[in-house]
């Protein structure tokens, strides 16, 4: 199972939350194992392509405060996702381009200028031991490696291809207001018509207690038509669950596999929420309206 390793990355400054992420561990939900994986898989895939890795290789997901890393061997790295200051030694680099890193050099990633999270790919990938087919840190269940701490050393895999010959990729800043496409169901019939009007007709705000499990929103409460408790049922990525306080919660990659609050609808693409800072305005739009 262990990939051949080639050098290590030393964590000089882990930042607020830096985790190892790949495309997660789908296929185990029936045993209570969350999917986990990068909150924006397309950004991780892009970063991997830029350094010549297979798209599912494990990289680092860096949250809000950046991080600093030293590489024991010469390698290539690429940053995708939020626009942030990135330096190799003292030399500034660009987001969305492969960057050559000499042996022993320090790569510093600054706080994002906009958005919340960046993904750093390293040629050869982060080669920690996979757990149930994935190297992802699952912040809900604790599977996978723990979040990075200062002083950690992570093994690197052997590069399999040359970095991509690109000059520039386009990184769009996150919009001021997130418009999320939503399909009602499976439990929209547990809510009043007023709740559906509010969900599709009013603006919500991303709460500061949001995390990799879910984006908590605050706004007009969604009243229930059916009292009582929903027997636990399976959850999907993007499920909009409404707990007893009536404030919706959009589940992200580390969501639990089952839940006992009704899901009013499902968001088609949750990746914009990966960049939604607390205070961001969110509106929901469905095929219905």
């Amino acid at each position, binding site marked *: 199972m262990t990939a051949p390793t080639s050098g290590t990355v030393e964590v000089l400054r882990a930042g607020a939350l830096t985790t190892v992420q790949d495309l997660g561990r789908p296929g185990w939900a029936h045993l209570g194992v969350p999917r986990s994986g990068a909150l924006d898989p397309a950004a991780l895939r892009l970063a991997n392509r830029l350094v010549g890795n297979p798209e599912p290789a494990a990289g680092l997901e860096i949250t809000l405060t950046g991080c600093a890393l030293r590489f024991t061997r010469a390698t290539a790295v690429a940053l995708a996702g939020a626009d942030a200051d990135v330096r190799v030694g003292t030399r500034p680099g660009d987001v969305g381009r492969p960057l050559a890193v000499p042996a022993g050099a320090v790569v510093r990633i600054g706080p994002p200028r906009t958005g919340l999270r960046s993904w750093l790919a390293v040629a050869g990938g982060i080669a920690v031991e996979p757990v149930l087919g994935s190297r992802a840190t699952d912040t809900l*269940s604790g599977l996978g490696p723990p979040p990075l701490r200062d002083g950690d050393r992570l093994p690197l895999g052997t590069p399999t291809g040359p970095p991509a010959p690109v000059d520039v990729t386009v990184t769009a800043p996150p919009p001021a207001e997130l418009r999320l496409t939503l399909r009602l*169901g499976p439990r929209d019939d547990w809510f009043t018509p007023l709740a559906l009007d509010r969900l599709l007709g009013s603006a919500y705000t991303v709460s500061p207690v949001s995390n990799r499990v879910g984006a908590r929103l605050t706004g007009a409460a969604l009243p229930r038509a059916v009292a009582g*408790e929903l027997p636990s049922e399976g959850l999907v990525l993007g499920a909009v669950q409404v707990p007893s306080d009536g404030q919706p919660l959009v589940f992200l990659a580390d969501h639990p596999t089952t839940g006992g609050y009704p899901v009013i609808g499902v968001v088609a693409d949750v990746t914009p929420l990966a960049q939604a800072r607390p205070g961001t305005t969110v509106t929901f739009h469905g095929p219905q309206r």
Partner: protein
Amino acid sequence: MRIRPVGAHALLLDCAGETDVGTADAGGDMTGPDEAVAARVEAWRAELWRRRERGELDAVEIVPAAATVLLDGVRDPERTTALLAGWTPAPVATVAPPATAEVPVTYDGEDLPTVAGHWGVDVSAVVRRLTTTEFRVAFCGFAPGFAYLTGLPAALSVPRLASPRPRVPAGSVALAGPYAGIYPTASPGGWLLVGRTELPLFDVHADPPARLAPGTRVRLVPA
């Protein structure tokens, strides 16, 4: 059985009738569906797992729960919905013998007297009941390898603690609602503790990683 839409790539098979939804008691406690619903869920789970194995069903996840089976990672939900309409699940008893597990339990949980009080019997009768019941894993959830065990009659449902314990040790055997469960790892928890087991329940290096997968018949034998 009713199929509920779940986004663009998932379907929820709802095995409850329109009137079977759980009702909260004064404490807002978990209730479960009746035994017929649980049997329909298990029949569909087994049927769908078999059909996926034979290549007749396209789904990344087939997740049973209290009254539903979720199909997630379905490329063509419309086609799958049409297929489902033509399938009838084989009754649980008619297919291959299920996996079984004996879990040795030391019955010394601190909530045994509370459970005895709810059931209106003494502690030894609670233990006798638990050791002689054939449980079945209805579904997993809450944590990797946490199995919801069905087998106790609905009349013996017990409420969860009003405020959960901050830490329940790994291996704790506990009751809540109509279910028994075993904490695979230490975690906060509000279930009533009746005993403990040394048996490891979740091991990422084992195949399958969870000892108690959905459908497994379970006996909580005295250690």
